[in-house]
């Protein structure tokens, strides 16, 4: 599903936010990405959705080389990936409902169907009563859950979540992780960047850990282990 071949990324000359990153994530896997603040987790996720292009190396996502696909194909790539951004990235002039269903609307899905889907996912994150609120009228944790709802509304083949429980209480956080597991069980590949050591330990999934831009540790693919 995702392959990194010797990927380097830098924002300033000779300072690498990521260096020599190589790993493979198979379809259907559930992976935690961890590492201290500033290690390069968000940068790695940005490369997957081609928000950024790596300075060196190749990245394959769902069979496509994301650093070389034409610009016109980027939207389709991104629509196949659900992303929970670390800073939520909700559109402030749109309500929760509109934020969650915006992409569905551009795809021409009618209002009724959009309502149904939004209702479903908002219920999953416990926000059905905030459907017509604007993001700035929500608490931090509520905004985060809207971001989760938006990421899963289009049944993505790949789900990227950047610190998706940083603003949630432990119970809500566990709910969200259970939700991710459920989605994962239906076939979606899930990659969660997080600092939450307890959660990582509890869930017993493959862990990729970064330190200062280098791949520090990879607990190995469970799927591959099962296959061999």
């Amino acid at each position, binding site marked *: 599903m995702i392959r990194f071949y010797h990927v380097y990324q830098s924002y300033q000359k000779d300072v690498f936010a990521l260096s020599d990153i190589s790993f493979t994530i198979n379809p259907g896997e559930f992976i935690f990405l961890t590492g201290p603040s500033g290690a390069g987790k968000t940068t790695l996720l940005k490369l997957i959705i081609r928000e950024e292009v790596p300075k060196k190396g190749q990245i394959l996502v769902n069979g496509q080389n994301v650093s070389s696909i034409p610009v016109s194909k980027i939207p389709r790539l991104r629509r196949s990936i659900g992303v929970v*951004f670390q800073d939520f990235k909700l559109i402030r002039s749109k309500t929760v409902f509109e934020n969650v269903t915006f992409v569905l609307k551009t795809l021409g899905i009618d209002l009724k169907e959009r309502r149904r889907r939004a209702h479903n996912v908002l219920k999953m994150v416990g926000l059905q009563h905030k459907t017509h609120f604007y993001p700035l009228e929500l608490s931090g944790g509520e905004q985060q859950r809207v971001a989760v709802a938006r990421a899963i509304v289009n049944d993505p083949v790949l789900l990227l979540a950047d610190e998706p429980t940083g603003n949630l209480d432990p119970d809500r956080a566990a709910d969200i992780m259970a939700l991710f597991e459920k989605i994962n069980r239906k076939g979606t590949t899930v990659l969660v960047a997080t600092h939450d050591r307890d959660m990582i330990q509890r869930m017993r999934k493959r862990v990729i850990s970064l330190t200062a831009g280098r791949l520090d540790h990879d607990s190995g693919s469970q799927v591959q282990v099962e296959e061999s």
Partner: protein
Amino acid sequence: MLQFLYFSLSEAVTSLWRTRILNLLSLGTIMFAMFILGSFMFVGLNLQNLALDWQKQIQFNIFLNDDISEEARAEIQAYLGKSFFVDSFTFLSKDQARARFDEKFAAYEKVTENLEDNPFPASFEVFLLRGTKQQTYTTLKDELKSFAGIEEVYYDEEVFRRLGMFAGFIQMAGWFFGVIVIFSSIFTISNVLKLTFFTRREEVDIMKLVGASRAYIRGPFIVEGVLQGFLGAGAGVFLVYSGYLMVGRFLTGNTSFILGNLEPEFLPMQWVVLILLAGGFSGLLGSLFSLHQFLEEHISYH
């Protein structure tokens, strides 16, 4: 396609309404730009009317020989009657001509007082159509030469030259100013749209990140631009109309202008439609420009 149009329109209308404070600002600016354009057209139109009015007052005089035959006179009269350029004409007998001279050139009273004989010739006073060019005068003069019984064909070249210069100057000022006004209207509209869109670049970045395709991001902005341009132009034309009413009231209340028989004319319907279309078109151009300039690229904050 229909779905795309529906999407763009609904998003545009929603956004116009939700950020109405902001949009009123840009709409107001567009309105004033179009107001200036419209006022400019209005003033230009009326100055031109004035110039044409004056030009119309230029006489073209055909002085007749004292011994002209009735037939010859009738022939000339017939020619004038069917000429394309002639608006109206009157015949002035020898006596009328003398009376007219006395009246008009009071300073030369002495000159005519002492005359026993009436030296003033009979004449046709011809008024040509509005907007006649110097060229026409010359042509008419040449054609009339072939008629019998004409002493001389005369028109006031000096006045004509003056008026021509005046018209030329007004026209030049008009072009000079008009180009500026049109150019800066478009520029203003496009800039203002850029500014309003600029406040939403974050939104646009988010839309891109969640996978909305180019067309669906641009569509609503373009519709919004066109709507703003169109509405702004409408408001501008409305202001020009109010100005027109005010000027009209001022003129009828001011005796010195009644004498001049000046009555302002509002922009003809076609021009109004043209202004509205220009507004919409500038909006379209403006939004296309701004989209090209910053919606495509991530513009950083600093």
